[in-house]
Structure formats: structure tokens, C-alpha cells
């Protein structure tokens, strides 16, 4: 079914070729070992590259929202601004703060970055570009991405700084609450698709994205997922843990150089991860726009490779996230928790029930048409 249409620009062509070449020339142990290393290197490279692009995009778009031009000094339109920033961050001294709990202080950034990297590995970027395809993909992604909070709490606790401490505590409360909503929203979609495997989820959305398939219920889940995703990644209007006008920089106040870079990187990657999961679960992931029966149209859609489809969807979601971030003031901690426990969670619970009924009654779009 997958290869029905001609797909000239797919990455699968390249990966299949590498796999077959290695397999033909080397014993299977070595070919697998080399492939694993290649995958790891590719993931790390994509990881850092994505972060750099995201930082540039964010700065530029933010500037446009704010009647400014944004970075424009390093390279044409400032495109090398993040490169310059990365070099600066690499060269900066990692400042040794007195009276910190050294082990925890140095460990915290790694927790952050490892959590986001683990999640990053499970994202289906394109057809066939999927490092690990668990049968419990959704569960894995939710579980692993919550590890990051340990880093935040450690950073806040070990910094021996009262601002950091308040930031970390806020972060803890916020993360635990919103994890619940995000989980429920994803669960709604699991109910709809009947699988936790990300690749199967995408396949099931071939002709009708989940957000349309589950209509009302799916749209509500989608909105809730976006809100709680924002909150989980500590981005405005939920950026209380680092609220710069209150806590200077919150939990990472005392970090400098590469350690700060890790937090920074993880923050941007988390934004990307949330957007990718939303795109995968709700908007059909890398699947091009397909209409049942319109073969010519579908063929044209496939000429745009699947990774481009994925990128476009993710970028749109990220753009929306930036748009929201730069339009609204920040919530207060009690309002933040109110929003979760008094609005999102009850709505979510009702929503999941509605979804179950929809599926049972056969009122999803796929069932009707």
C-alpha cells in the first residue's frame, strides 16, 4: 500500500541503498553496528541543526511581531546569527558557583538534554525515517519527555539561589499538572485510532487526518494538547519558571556557557518535539494530503517528499506557538493551575468520554463516509 505512488525524492531510497550495500558487503553484526552509529550521528546532527534553525526562526518571527527587524548583522538577514551564538556559547567559561551542590548542579543540564534527545529519537520524521518504532510509541514519548523536569528541579535546587528555587518549584507544579492534560489529549486520539504505535497512527490517517476524523472531540483534544504542550515546554504565556520580569531567569539563573546552552537547546527542541507529536497524532505526520479516489491528485501530492510535509506541518504549529507566546501576558501560578484543574482537565475528561462514544457509535468521519 505504501509504495503505490512514485516518490522520487524520498529519503527511503537513500536509506534502503545504504542498508542493502552494507548488508551485502559486511557480516550482519557489523552492518547493524555501523547503521546504529550512523543513525545516532544523524540524529545528533539533526538535533543541533534543528535547534539552531529554530532559534533563528524564533528571533526573526518575534521581531516581526514586535515591529522590529530582528537579527540582521551576521550574514545576509542575519542567518548566521545562531552560528555565532553557538560559537560564543562554546567559548564561554562555565562559571563555577560557590556553595552549590556540585554533582547535582553539573548533572542537571544533562537530564534536560537527554530527555529531549530520547524523545527526539522516537519521532517519525518521514516515511521510513523513524529511528525506533515502538508499539507503544505514544506512551514512550510521554514518559520520556517528562524526565526533563528532573533536570529543572535539580537545577533549581542545586543552584543555591532563591530565585532558581522558586522557578524550579513553579516548574514542578506546572509540569506535573499539564502532563495530565497532555496525556489525556493523546489518549483521546489513541481511543480514536486504536493504536499506540506512531507509524500505525500515521498510516491510519492516510485519507483523513485524525483531527477531522474525530471532528469535535479531536479538535478539542488538539487545542488542549497545544495548550498543555506550551505549558510543558515552559513557553509563554506559561513561562513562569523562568519569568524574566519576576525571577530574572528562574531555574537556570546560575548557569553559564555550555550548561546554559543545554537548557536553551532543550527548550527549543522541546518546542519542536511538542509540535512534531501534535503533527503526527493529529495532522497525519509526514503523510501528504490524500483524498480517497483522487489518484492523480494524490500522485502530485507525493511529489513533495514526506519529510517536507512533516516540516511544513511542524513549522505551522511552531509558528502558532510563537504567535501565542508573543501576544499574551504571563499567567500567575495559581491561574495557571486553575486553568489546568478547573478548565482543561474537566473538559478533557468529558472529551475522552465523547470520543469513546463517537468511536463506539461509529460517528467518526471514516465510518460515516
Amino acid at each position, binding site marked *: 500500500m505504501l509504495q503505490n505512488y512514485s516518490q522520487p525524492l524520498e529519503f527511503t531510497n537513500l536509506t534502503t541503498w545504504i542498508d542493502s550495500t552494507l548488508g551485502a558487503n559486511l557480516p550482519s553484526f557489523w552492518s547493524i553496528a555501523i547503521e546504529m552509529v550512523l543513525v545516532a550521528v544523524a540524529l545528533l546532527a539533526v538535533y543541533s541543526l534543528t535547534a539552531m534553525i529554530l532559534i533563528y526562526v524564533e528571533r526573526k*518571527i518575534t*521581531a*516581526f*511581531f*514586535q*515591529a*522590529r*527587524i530582528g537579527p*540582521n548583522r551576521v550574514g545576509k538577514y542575519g542567518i548566521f546569527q545562531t552560528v555565532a551564538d553557538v560559537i560564543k556559547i562554546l567559548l564561554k567559561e562555565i562559571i563555577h558557583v560557590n556553595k552549590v551542590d556540585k554533582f547535582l548542579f553539573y548533572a542537571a543540564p544533562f537530564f534536560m538534554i537527554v530527555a529531549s534527545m530520547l524523545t527526539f529519537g522516537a519521532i517519525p520524521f518521514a516515511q521510513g525515517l523513524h529511528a525506533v518504532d515502538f508499539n507503544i510509541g505514544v506512551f514512550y514519548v510521554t514518559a520520556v519527555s517528562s524526565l526533563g523536569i528532573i533536570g529543572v528541579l535539580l537545577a533549581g535546587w542545586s543552584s543555591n539561589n532563591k530565585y532558581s528555587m522558586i522557578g524550579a518549584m513553579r516548574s514542578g507544579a506546572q509540569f506535573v499538572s499539564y502532563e495530565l492534560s497532555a496525556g489525556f489529549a493523546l489518549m483521546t486520539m489513541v481511543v480514536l485510532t486504536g493504536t499506540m504505535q506512531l507509524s500505525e497512527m500515521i498510516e491510519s490517517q492516510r485519507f483523513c487526518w485524525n483531527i477531522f476524523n474525530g471532528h469535535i472531540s479531536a479538535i478539542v483534544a488538539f487545542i488542549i494538547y497545544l495548550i498543555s504542550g506550551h505549558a510543558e515546554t515552559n513557553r509563554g504565556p506559561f513561562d513562569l519558571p523562568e519569568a524574566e520580569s519576576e525571577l530574572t531567569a528562574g531555574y537556570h539563573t546560575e548557569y553559564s556557557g555550555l550548561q546554559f546552552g543545554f537548557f536553551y537547546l532543550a527548550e527549543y527542541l522541546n518546542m519542536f518535539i511538542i509540535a512534531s507529536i501534535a503533527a503526527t497524532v493529529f495532522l497525519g505526520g509526514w503523510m501528504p494530503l490524500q483524498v480517497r479516489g483522487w489518484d492523480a491528485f494524490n500522485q502530485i501530492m507525493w511529489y513533495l517528499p514526506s519529510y517536507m510535509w512533516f516540516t511544513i506541518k511542524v513549522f505551522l504549529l511552531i509558528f502558532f506557538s510563537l*504567535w*501565542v507566546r*508573543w*501576544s*499574551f501576558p504571563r499567567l500567575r501560578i495559581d491561574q495557571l493551575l486553575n486553568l489546568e484543574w478547573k*478548565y482543561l482537565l474537566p473538559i478533557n475528561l468529558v472529551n475522552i468520554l465523547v470520543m469513546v462514544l463517537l468511536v463506539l457509535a461509529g460517528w467518526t468521519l471514516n465510518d460515516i463516509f
Partner: protein
Amino acid sequence: MRTFPEYISDLFGGIKSLLTGLSVTWKELWTKKVTQQYPENRSTLVISDRFRAELVMPHDENNEHACTACGICQMNCPNGTIQVIPKMVETEDGKKKKLLDRYVYDLGMCTFCNLCVLTCPSDAIKFTNQFENATFTRGKLVQQLNKEGSQLRAKKPAAPKTQIQTPPKEA
């Protein structure tokens, strides 16, 4: 306790207000930006004529200025920015005359209050809008305003320029 309809209307009212906010930023995204690209726009940059950036002593084509070294500006300066160093010169008819030797101005101290220019009886100094005053050392901010070898212009310009500039009589 709020009623259920209130809860719902709160919810949708709130969402509406947020969407209105989003529409404002959306419009802004496509409007022209206000940032000025200095220094690229140096050739087109307009700095208002009255902008006070630096004190200068205008010299004419004969390298002559109007400063009589009376020291009124120095006296009026609130924080000692100006130092007028006079010299005594003997004229042809044997009289001693006070002339300007050095007019020292410390840009780093200046508060640009304009009192020196207002009170100058001979219109010898003025503020210009040359604002690019950055230097690498503080010493460079201390400037001598009269040029090397410059002289006092023979005739005083007529009529004082504004109304309040009668100079203090005591020295």
C-alpha cells in the same frame, strides 16, 4: 460559586479576547517595521537641527572665531565642563589685551543644558547635531574648541540672537 452558564460564557469570552489579541499581532506581522538601520542609513538619516550633541566654536574662512575669552560660559556652566584659558597680549598701541589661548571643553562632563550658548555675549559657541561622539578613551572627550592659530574676529556681530541672554555683570 458561579453558575454553569457563567462558566461557559467566561470560557468563550476569554477565548474571544485572546483571539482579538492574536489578530493585532497578526496585523503587525505584515506591517512595515519601524527599526532604523543605523549605520547603513547614515546618508539618509535626519537629525534635528536643534539636537545638542557637541559644543563647537565656529571658525570662519580666515580661521577667526568670536570668543573674547570673557569666561561667562565657564561661570555659567553648572558642572565645570568648560575651561577658558586666556592669554595677555600686548597690542600695537601698547595696551594689554585679554585674548583666548585655549578653550577646553570636556564632552564627558557636559549635561547639554545649553546655558553656555544662551549666555555667550558674542555668539562664539554653539551646539551641533554631530552625534557620533564615541571614543575609546575618556581623554579624547576633552577637546580644545579653538583651532590652532585662530584669532579673534575683528568686529563683533551685531544684535544678540535671543532675548534672555544678557550676560551676568559680575565676573
